[in-house]
């Protein structure tokens, strides 16, 4: 019985453990969709392993407000991204843009994969190579001699 009470009270407390649900008056459903998408794309710079949608930090809250304001003001996703990046740098994007700074980040894994593939192919080829070497004239004569000796003994 005691256990049941604990479980039930914990279940009742669950909604309180979640981030507060914010009611925001969007001008149209398309704006709301974009808002939800965008706040999932931005990193909260205070608690760096969360996006601003999940974070309860005061700054994340302010930034959600900012994104909301900009969307309702008719700003494009591009403009909002630029707004965030000029203030907090590329780090604020969970999917960094492709530029000279982030080039290795995007291409690096493929480069390493290709290098690995090259070594793997080389390795397999070498293993499959059957070594066939012709015997020299000298060696043939030696074998013949040995065999002849054996026959004579028998």
């Amino acid at each position, binding site marked *: 019985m005691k256990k049941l009470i604990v479980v039930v009270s914990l279940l009742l407390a669950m909604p309180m453990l979640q981030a507060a649900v914010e009611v925001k008056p969007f001008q149209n459903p398309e704006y709301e969709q974009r808002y939800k998408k965008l706040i999932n794309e931005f990193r909260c710079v*205070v608690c760096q392993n969360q996006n601003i949608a999940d974070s309860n930090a005061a700054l994340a809250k302010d930034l959600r407000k900012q994104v909301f304001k900009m969307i309702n003001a008719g700003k494009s996703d591009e403009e909002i991204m630029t707004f965030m990046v000029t203030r907090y740098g590329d780090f604020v994007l969970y999917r960094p843009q492709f530029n000279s700074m982030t080039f290795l980040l995007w291409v690096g894994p493929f480069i390493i994969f290709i290098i690995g593939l090259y070594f793997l192919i080389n390795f397999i080829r070498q293993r499959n190579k059957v070594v066939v070497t012709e015997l020299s004239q000298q060696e043939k004569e030696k074998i013949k001699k040995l065999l002849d000796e054996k026959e004579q003994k028998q």
Partner: protein
Amino acid sequence: MNRALLPLLAFIILVVFLGIGLTKDPRKLPSTFIGKTAPTFNLPQLHDLKKTFSPEDMLGKVWLLNVWASWCVSCRAEHPVLNNMVSKNKVNLIGLNYKDEVADARGWLARYGDPYQLSISDLEGLVGIDWGVYGVPETFIIDKKGVVRLKHTGPVTNKDINEKVMPMIKMLEQE
């Protein structure tokens, strides 16, 4: 070279890079404002809310913007350092009171001393967003042309003042 040594070599290189990684603080982000004109604003002054302040007022001077709040614990640790700095040097130190209550902020300065020429009140934290503030306290150095030249995230220490802040100010005064 001995082929067997290759994995060892790769391992050593990996360890060196991981070791370098350990010495870096991932919480410190490079400011995107270095070398750029400081974002402008126009905010009420903490001690006289009818008066406003804007970065343009400081054109022609080298100045520091220190972001602080009465709710910020590290700011209290930093505060004696700032008091000490202005008592020993001629520094234009402006405070940006970030997401604070006016009464709390005034009380805090009355209690711990006020090193600022003036503080500005950013109740909503909107200027903080424009300046890319993410961890109070933060300190910016702005040159005579209004360009941000240095940003320090977290409390400044006496060592930072002596080795980073004052040399930078002296250099910018010459420009």
